[in-house]
């Protein structure tokens, strides 16, 4: 008979095996979020299609036609935008959904034991379903432009993983802080908006100069820009989907990957540290 000991400071040593034991709950929570999302709104699925489609149209018009941003010749501008919109929407929704996830599931947290990590994780999965729908849209758009991706597309899962890790890491930080400081949720939409302008969604990363001359100072602008972990993901997506038309810039990719890893690990660390008190303060 296995014995379970509960005492102070004994963060269960079998946390990770518990996480595995509760995998069914994880799946069912993810499924619940998806089911409810598409049940509640009449235009449920339509909305996930309309939103990225409209943003793509608007961006193409604003950045290509009005701002006259240059683009690689062989790629339609709409595809350039869409390929970036895909990971951006995913990261943005995953971030905001998971940051609220603990609060919206507070009734579960105060009544039932399970590894709390499941909650933000399952809300990231929910955003992944949206992502898949948008992916279908991307496919349609490629057919429309008669644009065939090449072997590079096979590397897409790698960048998807990077997007996952980034969104999850930020989400963990935000949701743990959100439980502690309830006004944190007002900061999240602002972060998303801020991140949007700092991410190369409507334009190509090549527009950022490597060195920026400013009053005689030499600022490594591109390197600084890559501190936004989404930059590496977006570049990767464009590279994979658009036949390598958008070149990968290695320093940026390495920075993004490193930063994402740090975010994800520190997110897990902070979440685990705060987790014990969730049921008491929520």
């Amino acid at each position, binding site marked *: 008979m296995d014995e379970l000991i509960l*005492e102070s400071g004994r963060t269960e040593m079998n946390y990770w095996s518990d996480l595995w034991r509760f995998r069914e709950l994880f799946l*069912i929570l993810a499924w619940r979020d998806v089911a409810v999302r598409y049940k509640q709104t009449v235009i449920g699925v339509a909305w996930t299609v309309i939103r990225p489609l409209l943003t793509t149209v608007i961006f193409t018009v604003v950045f290509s036609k009005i701002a006259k941003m240059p683009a690689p010749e062989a790629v339609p501008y709409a595809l350039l935008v869409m390929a970036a919109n895909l990971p951006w929407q995913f990261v943005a929704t995953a971030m905001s959904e998971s940051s609220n996830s603990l609060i919206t599931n507070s009734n579960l947290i105060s*009544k*039932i034991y399970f590894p709390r990590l499941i909650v933000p994780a399952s809300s990231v999965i929910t955003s992944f379903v949206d992502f898949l729908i948008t992916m279908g849209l991307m496919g349609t758009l490629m057919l429309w432009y008669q644009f065939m991706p090449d072997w590079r597309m096979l590397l897409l899962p790698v960048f998807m993983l990077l997007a996952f890790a980034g969104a999850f890491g930020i989400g963990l930080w935000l949701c743990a802080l959100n439980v502690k*400081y309830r006004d944190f949720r007002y900061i999240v939409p602002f972060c998303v908006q801020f991140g949007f302008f700092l991410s190369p969604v409507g334009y190509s990363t090549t527009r950022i100069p490597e060195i920026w001359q400013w009053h005689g100072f030499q600022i490594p602008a591109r390197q600084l820009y890559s501190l936004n972990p989404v930059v590496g993901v977006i570049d990767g997506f464009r590279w994979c989907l658009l036949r390598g038309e958008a070149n990968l810039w290695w320093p940026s990719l390495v920075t993004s990957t490193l930063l994402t890893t740090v975010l994800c690990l520190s997110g897990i660390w902070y979440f685990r540290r705060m987790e014990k008190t969730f049921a008491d303060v929520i």
Partner: protein
Amino acid sequence: MNDTIISVETLGKKYNIQYLGEKQRYVALRDVLAEKTKRLFSRGQRAAANRHTTELPSTDSSADSCEDFWALKDVSFEVKRGEVVGIIGRNGAGKSTLLKILSRITEPTAGRVRLKGRVASLLEVGTGFHPELTGRENIFLNGSILGMSRSEIIKKFDEIVAFAEVEKFLDMPVKRYSSGMYVRLAFAVAAHLEPEILIVDEVLAVGDLQFQKKCLGKMQDVAAKEGRTVLFVSHNMSAITRLCSQGILVSSGHMIMKSDVNSVVSCYLNSMNEAGNKPRSVKERRDLLLQKKVFIGEVRIHDQEMNATEQLDVRHSFYIIFDYEIPRELQNIEMAVRIETADGRAVVTTLLSDSSPEALRETKLGAYEAAIEFPGMFFMPGEYLVNVAAHEPMGEIFDVRQTVARFTIQDTGSSFVRYQNYEAIGVVMLNLDWQQRHLAST
């Protein structure tokens, strides 16, 4: 073989009440930042004095606004396999904290618990039920939340549905369920859990009487036939005595006794009487009769069948009965009974003159007994306090008895059971006629 399945050793749980004022339920980052900044500027003057309170989020009254509160302290007991233990105590005694620690929702601050076997806790009926999902979907959702595996749920699905009697509505969103159906479905899922240790908190107070009996029966089966250990918290003493063999009495964070259930229950009832309705002693009475113009004696609460009790069924009417004496001839006496919620908000005041206006004009002398009937389906489920006073209308107060009795309204099937958050609904319920016309169908 060692039969101990739960062993609790000097268990303690400390909460840090940080400015738990009414208005600030949550810590806001804004406030923390503001306080930190404030302190930064005032640090120069009060550096030395304030050093030990650096971590506290408030400045001036920091010593008062942040204090330790032991919700549980030095609790030790053992539970043997197959025992059904009732945990009783007043609100805020620490019962729920104990259950929360045992079900791993929160960590203890001190001491330790050893659990041998799988624990399932049922602290609420229908945890995680989602109103938009159908009955079928909610069975799976709630089942896995309570710790059942998918295959287990599939195996028991038909049994659960049959127990809940909702076959016809399985594919309907539960938001369209009647409250009875909702509770039945929720309990049916929980009743089919198969853990070694089952922890149940006050969930039998819901549902109609017939279903309650069915649930009690099911729980008795669980304990007796399948040799499972059950910890059961309830304010319903009859359910406790019927279900449990052992009892644990908790009071203000301490365990008072663990013994067989009958002696624990009677000890609890005695302690309730002492605290709430302490009768005035003979000497006290004699002294007061000399000073006072009116003397209010014992206050009792009787249910519909005129049995003295403090646990009342929401559906039935009940009586508040009290004696009073008027030692000297006196006119213009108004008797008043005020019912307050447990946190002291007045719900309703009833006056003697409302039902018999002539009583005011009579000159009275001697001993009286007054009985007031309160209707059923009026007070929301919860705890209430009774105050009784005698006074001259708009004038002198002759005698006041504050919090002289208390009663608990048990929810046995009001339409609000499913919402669970009674405070947000109201203090009283009224069954009103709705006049509704269908104007047009667009």
